[in-house]
């Protein structure tokens, strides 16, 4: 059984984008922005229904993700935030993140968002090279990224995160180093660096299948990652999760909820939730989602009860992504059994092959283990 935690993180999914990026397989749709007003109403309705059930939780974090949440007008954001504060307890120190794409916001809008209480901005920058941005099918240039960062600072955002992608087809180490330098030049509090995953069915995947683009080189991507680790450490960022770096005190609290495998509620089309030992997913198409709520129904598509053994494995998979690692004490508090008793064999074996450090109290990925995380995680699944 779960200990009922009194605080909760809420994820709000906004499944709309101006145009579809070439590598993207997220639950998002281009050309459906006209649905936004009805969609926001549905979101508020879902929040209200959730509040009836879990209203005694206090919100630790709110995260507007997508898609492109910055396509919402500030009024829409306000309505959702109001719905949340009516449904749950919303303490003053709540972390509110909004993902934004350069080219979809300006200084005015950013100021409005800031004044609504949004206190963390996550910008999809992806690359400092316009040619790479085009390859990825992004709608913006690097110049727009720089301008947006400037405007965000002026609007009072003191907690700014930038996303980048490395290991692009044809990308050299030098080009990646240039992107990193340019990123550091903007002095973000937080950086997410993702190795490109070519997802089946995406336009990028098709181009690679047809040999129009070279397949990404994993070994080179590993080199880029190691370079970034070194460079960002030197610049004073701590590498707190496999793909995430932050200055002291700026780790993303919302995402830490996921990696600690603590409960969260997801609202919006295709959003997932993890509460009371259950994981469920909403209907993914915004039309279906809206219609369900307009009929007064819960928009749930799939439902899974997570068995304790599965939860233990998932917890290890998530905890080990973090630099803080998997703590034996916390494991015992949560599951009532010793980590050593459940996974002793796996831990020892992974230590022996050099992917893990394990001193009997905390298990952590080694630098090599960070690059070979799947080889570690699979042993716990």
């Amino acid at each position, binding site marked *: 059984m779960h200990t009922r935690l009194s605080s909760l993180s809420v994820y709000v999914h906004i499944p709309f984008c101006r145009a579809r990026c070439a590598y993207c397989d997220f639950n998002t749709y281009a050309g459906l922005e006209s649905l936004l007003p009805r969609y926001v109403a549905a979101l508020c309705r879902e929040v209200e229904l959730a509040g009836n059930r879990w209203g005694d939780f206090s919100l630790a974090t709110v995260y507007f993700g997508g898609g492109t949440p910055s396509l919402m007008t500030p009024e829409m954001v306000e309505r959702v935030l109001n719905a949340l504060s009516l449904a749950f307890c919303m303490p003053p120190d709540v972390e509110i993140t909004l993902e934004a794409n350069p080219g979809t916001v300006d200084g005015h809008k950013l100021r409005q968002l800031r004044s609504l209480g949004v206190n963390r901005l996550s910008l999809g920058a992806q690359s400092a090279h316009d040619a790479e941005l085009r390859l990825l099918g992004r709608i913006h240039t690097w110049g727009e990224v720089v301008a947006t960062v400037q405007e965000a600072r002026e609007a009072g955002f003191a907690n700014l995160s930038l996303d980048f992608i490395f290991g692009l087809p044809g990308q050299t180490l030098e080009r990646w180093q240039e992107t990193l330098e340019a990123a550091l030049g903007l002095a973000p509090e937080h950086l997410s660096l*993702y190795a490109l995953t070519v997802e089946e069915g995406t336009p990028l995947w098709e181009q690679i299948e047809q040999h129009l683009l070279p397949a990404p080189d994993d070994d080179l991507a590993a080199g880029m990652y190691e370079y970034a680790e070194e460079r960002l450490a030197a610049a004073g960022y701590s590498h707190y999760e*496999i793909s995430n770096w932050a200055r002291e005190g700026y780790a993303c609290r919302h995402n830490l909820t996921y990696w600690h495998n603590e409960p969260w509620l997801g609202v919006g089309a295709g959003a997932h939730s993890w509460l009371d030992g259950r994981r469920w997913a909403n209907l993914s198409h915004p039309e279906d989602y809206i219609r369900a709520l307009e009929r007064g129904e819960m928009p749930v598509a799939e439902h899974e009860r997570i068995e304790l053994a599965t939860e233990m494995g998932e917890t290890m*998979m998530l905890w080990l992504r973090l630099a803080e690692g998997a703590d034996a004490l916390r494991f015992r508090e949560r599951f009532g059994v010793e980590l050593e008793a459940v996974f002793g064999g796996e831990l020892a074996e992974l230590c022996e*092959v*050099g992917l893990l450090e394990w001193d009997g109290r905390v298990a952590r990925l080694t630098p090599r283990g960070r690059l*070979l995380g*799947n080889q570690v995680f699979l042993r716990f*699944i």
Partner: protein
Amino acid sequence: MHPSHIRDFCIIAHVDHGKSTLADRLLELTGTIPPHQMTAQVLDSMDLEREKGVTIKASAVRMEYTAPDGERYELNLIDTPGHVDFSYEVSRALAACEGALLVVDAVQGIEAQTLANLYLALEADLEIVPVVNKIDLTAARTDEVALELAELLGVDPDEVLRVSAKEGWGVERVLEAVVRRLPPPRGDPAAPLRALVFDSHYNPYKGVVAYVRVVDGALVQGEPLLLMSSNTVVEPLEVGVFTPGMTPTGRLEAGAVGYVATGLKTVRECQVGDTLTTVATPATEPLPGYRPVKPMVFAGLYPVEGEDYNALRDALEKLQLNDAALVFEPESSQALQFGFRCGFLGLFHMEIVQERLEREYGLDLIATAPSVAYQVVLQNGEVLRISSPADLPDPATIKEIREPWMRVQVFTPADYIGQVMEVVKRRRGIYKSTEYLDNQRVVLNYEMPLAEVIVDLHDRLKSVTRGYASLDYTFDSYRPGDLVRMDILVNKEPVDALALIVHRDQAYEKGAALVRKMKEVIPRQLFKVPIQAAIGGRIIARETVSALRKDVLAKCYGGDVTRKRKLLEKQKAGKKRLKQFGRVVIPQDAFLAVLRLEED
């Protein structure tokens, strides 16, 4: 039915010349299968046959036919496979028949297994009805091919039937010819029962189901039967015919082809080639039976999971009932532990056996590199027979190694003689002679070591002749050769199941090509893995599989947890098809790498 109104015949041909399609038309025309249940090559009922578009098993079916003169006949048809690896199926079917339809593709003409199967049929004393098929094709050379066939058989060209099995042209004439030109069943309805077991399969409820051709007497359910060579008494659970599903009739008269569900649970008592008679009035002499099969190719089959060993033995025994060309005996390997050394008629046969074991019996198997059987003469004069390179004794004790040589016939259009010669020369072939089939097509005769034949010779020949070449081979003799054992070391450890025997002159080239190929198929692991080829302890080639550098999901957020877990579960399941050797995992492909050296 009186024997004079029964005909037992089979359809034989080179692969793909249209036997099964012709069988479809006969089944249709006789109303054996109603139109709405008809599918293409309906007798190819195994999933594997349908997927590969090739007949693997001979299948029997009983048809009722009313001739134009109003007489009614019982026709027992056996469709046979054409692929060279399944010739044992053909020869067993022949023994249950008095006649054969020899089908030849009107475009391809006479090919290697046309002749090979014809000779088998003539040896079995069968009456032959020649049929040219696929006359609907625009490239058909119907007259030419008919003439060639007539010459081959020494008959009038008018006696060669011309059909399109696909379009249904000329098929009536085939049935008429079966009735008019093929003899009724030999045998004596009044004599004590003698029924030849020509095939079988295992059924969990009915035990061993024997496929029989009744030669003398009648087989009646309820009468205890005796298997003459195993001396086993059988109380049949069911007696019937194939229509083509199993249909109980309770009785099989002389000349009939059908089945007997024996209820036998162990498989040894009921071997193909045995004769069934009655316990009450047993026959004095069994029927001639079959020549035991001589496997050409040997390989080890091992369960990926050690605990499946017994299940594998059980599966092999049951499969052997339905595949009389399969032989096996227990074997152990340092690397793979316990499994079976299996003998096959060729690589295609091997592939089919492995697939059937995996599908029909739910096993997960590793097959080692195929090898031929060598004779090893020791210094002390003793001669060992070795079908696994790992069994080769210390070279110091060996006086001579002999390998099997084959007489090889390559059928090809004359335009490609040069290319064929080239392929054969690279494989130590010795040219013997050329025969012209007509002014376009030739038969090239060679002698060649079997070891060179089994390693994709057929595919190579096909690829240099744009698909036209066909191949047949028969054993000639064992001959001494300068043969050495090549060890393959993975991560510095020799893996016995990867060892092979090669000719000294080819050792360097083969060793280099092999380690290169293995490097491609062995997945990168957590550390780098050297792969070496060695002869007598000396390394002759080396490659390195570099260590895996990156394997991690970059993103894992809330919405992804289930998906990521499932991805990892899949990745983990994928590992199951690999075999762990110490710290290294080796996939099935690495064992078969030796077969693909010439691919690129």
